[in-house]
Structure formats: C-alpha cells, structure tokens
C-alpha cells in the first residue's frame, strides 16, 4: 500500500519548481519526514549535478560577421518584400562566409575586438539573468562537502589578564568575532573566562594554534557536521517557493475573479513570502555555520592563595580593641535594657504577688 501522499513524479516536479501551490505544500511537508522520498530527492538532485559536469564553452567563431552582413542587408532592403530580402540575406550570408574564410589579418584583429565587446555584453547581461548560472553555482557549492565545525578548548594560564588581551588580539587578527563572553572572579579561586568565538573557517587552524599558546591545554575537542544535504534541500525548496510566488503573482496580475478568490491568492502569496524569508534566514544561518568555526574557549587562572605575614600596627590594634570594647559596652547596655523591657513587667507582677507571703513567712521564721 502506498503511504506517500505524493507520487514520485510529483516529488520530481516539486524539486523542479513545477508543482502547483497546493501540492507543493503537501510535498514540502511530506519530504521533511519521509526518508524514502528524501532518498529519491537526493537521487534526482544527484542526476542533475552529474549532468552539470558536461559543460561546453562557446566556440571561437562568433558568427558576428555573417549576422552583421545579414543585418545590413535587412536594413538596406524594404521590409515589405520579405522573400527578396531572404535571398539578399542568404547572398550576404554566403558572401560573409567567403569573406570570413579569406579574412586578412587586420580584419581578424577587428573581429577579435568586436568579440571582446560582445563577450563583455554577455557577461554583463547574463550574470543577473541566467537561471542556469545560478543553479550551476548552487550545484557547484553543493558538490564540495559543507561542514559546520565546532571546537572546544580548555586552557589554564598563569597570567590571566595577558591571556585575555591576547585572545582578543587573535580574534581581531583572524577577522573573527565574539559570540559570548563571561568572566567570573570568585574570592577563593582563580578567575575564569568562558567565551564563544566565531572564526572564519579558512583561519581555523591558525587561530586554534595561536589560542593554544595562551596557556596549558587541559582539554580539546573538535566536531564537524556535514550539512550538504540540508543545504541542497533548502536550495531546492527555496527555488520552488520562489517559482510558486512568481506564478501566484502572475495569476493575481492576469486573472480577474471573485473577491474571495483574489483574497485567497493574496493570502497564499503572503504565506509563500513568509516561507521564503524563513528559508532565506535558515540558508544564511547554515552558510554562516559553514563559513565560521564556532570555538568555545574556557580560560582558567592558576589560583595562588595569599598569605599575609606582616603584623598589624599597635596603634591599629589599639584602635580596633577600643572599637571592640566600645561596641561590647554598648551591646551590654542595650542587652540589659532589652532584658528589662522584655521581662521587667513580668517580674514586677510576680514580685508584687510574692512579696506579702514571703514577708509573712520570714516573720514566722524569725519568731520561732
């Protein structure tokens, strides 16, 4: 029983950006969880990547002289008689080919110059326009593995302040930046610095080597996560979403219908735009993770307990003793007052109650 909500061909169409909006949503959702479909998608993308290995470069002959002659003929003849124009075009084209074969060297130089001009035009025009180039670049990026690296270093240093300054200097020299920094200075222990550094991947080895010199290495670890598949998948989904947005925009522009339909299309455009922005942010984050090493550094200061051998001065000790005596006296007086205030009323009552029986008992004892 087929448990997939989309057909394999639909999955392919989704990757090509050719699936209708509603089905594209289903495909995107399913692709996130289905390993089988992820595998198929990877296969399809792999085939496209392999096909891109076959690149051809444009030949040296530009065709410009032949076409220039044809254009000249076209401009010279009245356009209302196309059949005669054709003959002239062919004749001019033939003459152009003959001229090309027998071209003297000065003409070749001129042709090369024109070739360069046209090549410049091609470069200028094609860069922003050609979808092929975009996808090819994307594939080329995807062909080399994309690794997001993380490293951890634990160091102990004798000179904490110097090590910290050096760490900032290393970061600056290697064009890195500080993600997070915490410094703790407990009273009976050495200071510690916990920092998360982001260093360009190209500077990774040099930066780590320099940081290791800041102290004694207590622990070191490095990990790498390959995110190529994630990136390629993100690219494909982004491309699909952009195509969807474009198609929806065209639908909105060209079609008129019920207000509810128009609102539904606008809502879809808004949703797709949100998805595009989210995916672009993900792509940027992923790229940053690949381009920058995340280095977690823990720098601990060697703790040396301080022993105070010098005695305090006599004057200071007298002053301290006087203060202690005065404080003791005040504390005593305050304690008596507090005692009287606390227990005085109680004592008075008991004294009043016991006074007469006690006096009577005392008198009897004296008489006897």
């Amino acid at each position: 029983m087929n448990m997939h909500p989309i057909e394999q061909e639909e999955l392919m169409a989704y990757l090509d950006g050719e699936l209708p909006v509603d089905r594209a949503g289903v495909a995107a959702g399913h692709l996130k969880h289905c390993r089988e479909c992820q595998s198929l998608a990877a296969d399809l993308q792999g085939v496209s990547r392999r096909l891109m290995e076959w690149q051809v470069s444009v030949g040296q002959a530009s065709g410009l002289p032949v076409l220039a002659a044809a254009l000249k003929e076209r401009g010279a003849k009245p356009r209302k008689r196309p059949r005669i124009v054709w003959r002239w075009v062919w004749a001019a084209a033939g003459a152009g080919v003959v001229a090309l074969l027998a071209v003297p060297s000065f003409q070749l130089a001129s042709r090369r110059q024109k070739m360069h001009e046209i090549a410049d035009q091609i470069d200028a025009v094609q860069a922003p326009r050609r979808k092929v180039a975009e996808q090819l670049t994307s594939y080329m990026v995807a062909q080399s593995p994309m690794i997001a690296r993380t490293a951890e270093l634990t160091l102990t240093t004798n000179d904490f302040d110097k090590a910290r300054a050096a760490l900032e200097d290393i970061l600056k020299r290697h064009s890195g930046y500080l993600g997070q920094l915490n410094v703790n200075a407990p009273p009976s222990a050495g200071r510690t610095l916990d920092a998360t550094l982001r260093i360009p991947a190209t500077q990774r080895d040099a930066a780590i080597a320099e940081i290791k010199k800041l102290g004694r290495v207590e622990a070191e670890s490095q990990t790498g996560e390959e995110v190529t598949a994630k990136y390629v998948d993100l690219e494909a989904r982004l491309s699909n979403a952009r195509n969807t947005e474009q198609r929806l925009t065209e639908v909105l522009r060209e079609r008129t219908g019920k207000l509810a339909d128009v609102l539904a299309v606008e809502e879809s455009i808004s949703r797709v735009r949100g998805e595009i922005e989210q995916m672009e942010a993900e792509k940027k984050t992923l790229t940053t993770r690949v381009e920058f090493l995340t280095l977690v550094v823990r720098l601990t200061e060697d703790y040396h307990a301080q022993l105070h051998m010098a005695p305090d001065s006599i004057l200071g000790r007298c002053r301290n003793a006087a203060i202690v005596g005065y404080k003791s006296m005040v504390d005593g007086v305050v304690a008596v007052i507090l005692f009287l205030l606390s227990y005085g009323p109680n004592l008075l009552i008991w004294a009043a109650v016991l006074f007469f029986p006690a006096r009577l008992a005392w008198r009897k004892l004296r008489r006897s």
Partner: protein
Amino acid sequence: MISDEALMLEFQGGSREAFEELFARYREPLFGFFRRRLESQERADDLMQETFLAVIRATSRYQPRALVRTYLYGIALKSLAAERRRERRSDPSPQVDAVDGALDNSLWVRRALEKLDPSEREILMLREYEQLSYSEVADLLRIPVNTVRSRLFRARMALKNHLEPQPSRDREGAKT
C-alpha cells in the same frame, strides 16, 4: 532589464542594438544546445548562426505570442532535425571532433545520455541544460505536459542507473 520579447519587438522596428542584445543573451545557450547534440563543434557554431539568421529572416512575421526563448529553441530544434537528416543522407560516419580532448568527467555523462531513449533524452536535456519549464518543453515538442513529466522522470531514473557504475567500471568497458 528589458525583456526578450520587448527586444524582439524593438528589433522588428529596426533596432540593431536590440538584436545584438538578443544575440549576446542567447549565443552561448544556443551554442551549448547544438554542441551537446552534435559531434562537430564547427557545425554547432554554424547552426547557432543559422538560428539567428532565421530570426533575422522571420523578423517581419514575428508575433509575441510565445516567449522568445521558446521561439529560438523551436527554430534550433528544426535546424537540428534538418542537420540530422542531412548527416544521414550525406555521410553515415561524420567526422567527430575530440570533445574537449580528454576523458573528462563529462564523458560518462555523455555515454549515459546516449543510452537513453531519444525522446526522453531530448526532454531531459531541454530541462537540464536549456532550463526550459515543463510547459515550454511540451510546447516545443508538441506533447502534453503530463507526458513531459512522466518521460522526464523515466529519463532521470534511467540516467541514474546508467551513471551508477562509476568511472572505473566504465573505463574498463571503454577498453574492451
């Protein structure tokens, strides 16, 4: 940036610059189209020129009903068919250029493509190399879009299987 269709209309009105712009945009893609389908680089270049000559000749009759891109590839496909017919009539074993002169990675791709059914191969190449949409391919080949999709899927799966034996195995095959 001016669209291809606007440039074509300008050219129809007599603007040589518009044609040069179109030429700059499509020279390389059209050359690639022919180069991947013909053995001779020289013929690929000739046919690329002839495609533009055909555009020049047919300017007065051009109507912006389809994309210029589709229009150009339509002419290119017809030129290619004529060239193949001519090759069959004239010489059964045409002179073959050394393609880029070496056993590069593309050799395995070319060999794998050769093993595909011609109709499926054409659809795959139009999609992958010319970057045409399904509907553009359908228009060019005059077949339904669903047919394009199913043939494209079959072609990709078949190509995957043909490509799976990696270069080492193919090389052994090449020696025999």
